[in-house]
């Protein structure tokens, strides 16, 4: 996987962020275009390409979610786009509350605040289970584990969108 290769890393799901940062800084210095000001055009171009690649690699790998998404894509797994069925009821109730609040019904606020707390907790749970799944997969790379990671990422993404909607609405209405 080219982002791991660029930083001289084995493709692992769990990464030491300090080590990642150090590798990124070291290699970025090494390939910095300023150091190639008197090099020939081929070397200049190589320096620019490597710098850009290192930036992409670091940005992708430092965040566990984008790292896992990259890892899955490189492993040939498409990210699912399905709404997790177990969340539908909750999403529906949430939309009802959002609609009421937009219509000026302040009593919906309490429901939104508790939804906000619940979604934040779900995000925390998803992050914790991802960390566990990463460690598990790095130790014993089984395809089934990737499927679980995929489902967890999907759920996390869905919840994070919901959380964003709730927070946006709560902010808009607290301004008044």
């Amino acid at each position: 996987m080219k982002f791991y290769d660029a930083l001289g890393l084995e493709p692992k799901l769990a990464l030491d962020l300090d080590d990642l940062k150090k590798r990124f800084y070291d290699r970025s210095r090494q390939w910095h275009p300023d150091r190639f000001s008197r090099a020939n055009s081929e070397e200049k171009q190589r320096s620019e390409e490597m710098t850009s690649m290192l930036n992409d690699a670091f940005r992708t790998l430092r965040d566990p979610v984008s790292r896992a998404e990259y890892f899955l894509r490189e492993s040939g797994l498409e990210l699912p786009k399905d709404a997790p069925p177990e969340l539908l009821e909750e999403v529906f109730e949430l939309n009802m509350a959002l609609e009421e609040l937009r219509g000026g019904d302040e009593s919906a606020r309490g429901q939104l605040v508790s939804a906000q707390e619940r979604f934040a907790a779900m995000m925390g749970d998803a992050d914790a289970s991802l960390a566990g799944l990463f460690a598990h997969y790095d130790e014993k790379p089984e395809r089934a584990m990737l499927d679980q990671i995929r489902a967890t990422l999907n759920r996390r993404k869905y919840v994070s969108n919901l959380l964003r909607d709730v927070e946006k609405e709560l902010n808009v209405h607290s301004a008044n």
Partner: protein
Amino acid sequence: MAYSDKVLDHYNNPRNVGSFDKKDPNVGTGMVGAPECGDVMKLQVKVNPATGVIEDAKFKTFGCGSAIASSSLATEWLRGKTVDEALAIKNTDIVNELSLPPVKIHCSVLAEDAIKAAIDDYKKKSENVGVESKAHA
């Protein structure tokens, strides 16, 4: 993208918006969600257990105009149909009636799924009549 007149009509005057008590044994509830846009659709049917005819249908949809129109139209069509006739409603019927463009076909699929889910829920409930009811899911 312009909505067809029929979509606009359903969007501006949605039919049968609302809900029934989902614990009512004669009510079937279908809740479905769209992957692409995050739409959620709840569609309910109230069935006469003696005749198997859908006497009333209600929906509530959070989503785009086409999703609202698709579910609104679905509830209109459901009223007066038997449960089995209702299952014969296809998403392509909705597409044709509302002249939905290709990018909005998934809205009609969602409505068909909601109908199937609602009927399925009703059937499961009616099979359990007499049996001690399990804690609701």
